[in-house]
Structure formats: C-alpha cells, structure tokens
C-alpha cells in the first residue's frame, strides 16, 4: 500500500496562515492503514489545529470530512457540499488524493497534510517498511523474492556492496542489507546459482526515470462513441 506520514504541525500551521475556512479531508484506504490520514488521524489533526488556532488567535474554522478513496473522482465529487464556502482543504490523503481534490476544485487551495513516502507494508504494528520501488520491470524472480531496487540503498543488482556487515546495510543499522537477505532466500530456495551470472545493466525506461508513467488497459477504456452514448457524469 502507499505509506505516508503526517507533516509536522509547525509546517502545517505555517501553510494554513492567512486561511479561515479549513476542511481537513481524510481517506479511508491506504493512509488510514498506515495511521496517517484515517478518520481518527483527521480528528487528532483537527483538535491540534483548533488548539493552535485558539492559543495563537489564528481564527481558523476547521471542519472534518472523510473520503472513501481520495484518488477517485467519483468519491471526491461527494465532497462538494462540504467544500462550499471553504477557502482551503488540508488533505490527509497521499499525494495522489491531494492532487485529485485540487484538480476537481480549482478555486479552493488544497494543502498536503502528509508526506507520501513509499510503497510498502507494515512489518509489525506501527512500523511500515518500503518494499517496492515501482521500477516498472520486476526482477524478483532473480533475487529470491526480495527487491534490491527498493530495499538496497544503492539499488545494486549484483550486490552486496562492501559496506554490508552483520546483515545490516551501511546506511543504517536498522535497515537489513537486501542482498544478505537475497543470499539467504536463494540459499533456502536452493537457487544460489542465480547469483553466479552478473546481471547486465537494467533499463530504467519503465521506471520513474523514463518520465511519468501511464498504464492503459484497452479493454476497459470507453471509446469516444461510448462516452457520447453514455453521457452523464462518468
């Protein structure tokens, strides 16, 4: 899932200066799961900002709203009555959500309440770890199901580097060395042979480096004629 964490209150209140009608919009999918933008987090953020507003006389009028999934136009459209009369929206969804709200309500300023971080999974309650770098050309079949692009600090394909010691990455003691894990995974899979052959340079075209990506599933795309025939909001 997409993992994000809240910006510091200081930064958020800095952004909110000069605004009066504020709507905090949370999201019920990924950011709720990583405890960044769910309904409770929206409530906590609302209370904290109301405290700041009364303590420092900011005069903010803060309202809370939830969206099922803030990256879907249909659901963000349901925010319309709540957004009427507000001059800014503090989105506690991931970056995608904030951008969707801004695209649908061009005259209302949308402020990012979260720093969207990565695609990962909860390791245990409260700890979320990056697992996938979205490089567009998966190599898990060569690395025993452990992604070196996302989980090796240097995205090496013929790791480990010289700095891996005690199973930890040189970058930080609590980051396991991906290649150490790859080695042990392939060992238990009995496929250490995969590490013999040097892997040639990777094409980064399908990755973010190739420019913003656009995935098209032709059989679900409505043709121009279908759109004309269907009409309505969709």
């Amino acid at each position: 899932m997409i993992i994000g964490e809240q910006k510091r209150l200081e930064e958020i209140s800095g952004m909110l200066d000069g605004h009066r009608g504020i709507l905090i919009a949370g999201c019920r999918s990924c950011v709720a799961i990583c405890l960044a933008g769910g309904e409770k987090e929206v409530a906590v953020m609302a209370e904290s900002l109301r405290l700041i507003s009364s303590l420092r006389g900011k005069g903010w009028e803060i309202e809370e709203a939830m969206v099922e999934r803030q990256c879907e136009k249909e659901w963000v459209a349901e925010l319309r009555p709540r957004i009427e009369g507000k001059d800014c929206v503090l989105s506690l969804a991931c970056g995608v959500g904030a951008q969707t709200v801004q695209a649908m309500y061009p005259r209302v300023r949308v402020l990012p309440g979260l720093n969207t971080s990565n695609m990962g999974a909860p390791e245990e309650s409260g700890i979320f770890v990056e697992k996938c770098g979205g490089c567009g050309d998966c190599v898990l079949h060569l690395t025993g199901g452990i992604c070196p692009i996302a989980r090796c600090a240097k995205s090496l394909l013929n790791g480990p580097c010289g700095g891996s010691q005690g199973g930890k990455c040189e970058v930080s003691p609590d980051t396991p060395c991906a290649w150490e894990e790859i080695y042990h995974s392939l060992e238990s899979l009995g496929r250490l042979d995969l590490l013999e052959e040097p892997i040639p340079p990777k094409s980064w075209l399908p990755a973010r480096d190739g420019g913003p990506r656009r995935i098209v599933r032709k059989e679900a795309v409505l043709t121009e004629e279908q759109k004309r025939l269907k009409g309505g909001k969709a």
Partner: protein
Amino acid sequence: MMRILAFCCERGPGEAIDLAGEKRMRYPADLTLIQVPCAGRVDVAHLLKAFREGADAVVLVGCLEGNCHHIYGNIEGRKKVDRAKQILDEVGLGGQRLEMFHVASNQPFRIAELAAEMASRVERLGPNPLAVKE
C-alpha cells in the same frame, strides 16, 4: 468434426438465428450457438476457456455498432475479443481462431457466412492442438 463455438447476443443476432431457421438457411452443424444477453456480457476468460475445452474456433456475434440494444455492449464485446486475440497470439494458438462478427436482426444469411468463414479458417489452421492431444 470441427467444433466452432459462438457466443451470440440474443437481441439482434438471436433474432437472425431464428430467422435463418425460419428461412431454412443451411449452415454447418459444427457451429453451436450459446445465447448471452449482450455481446458485452462475454469476458476474456469465457473465450479462452472455450479453447481449453477443445473449441477449434470461437466467435462472438454482436449487433452492428451503433445498433446495440444495450447502447454499446457490442463495442465492449469487440474490446474483449481484441484482448483475447492478443493473448491467443502470445500463447501460440493464434488469434485467427477467434473473431467477432456483427449481425443485425434482419441479416440471417450472415450466420451461414460467418460459419463458413470460421470453418475455412479452421481448415487452414488445423484443429485445436489441445483437442488432438486428448
């Protein structure tokens, strides 16, 4: 004996089939027709599963574009056929064994035409290799 399976929209083409019957328009018995509410009802899995069940050729018969009783079910059907053809090519069975035909309710002769067309394709491409193995 060839096995050609046709998924047939019951509105337009379904009417054409009955009209073909009324007019005694002969077509090869290899063509077996399954009636579905609309060409858009059939999804890629049905088309591929038919080949796994031994069909030599599969046909999706929908109404003419712009004449769909369910607004644009036939365009949805066309998209599924294109996707399935792509997969059949990649798989090696050949997308030629799958085709979409458009038949209006007053074109009974098209049923015989499409049956003949698919029969000739099966002759050219040979029977479904899966069926032969069994």
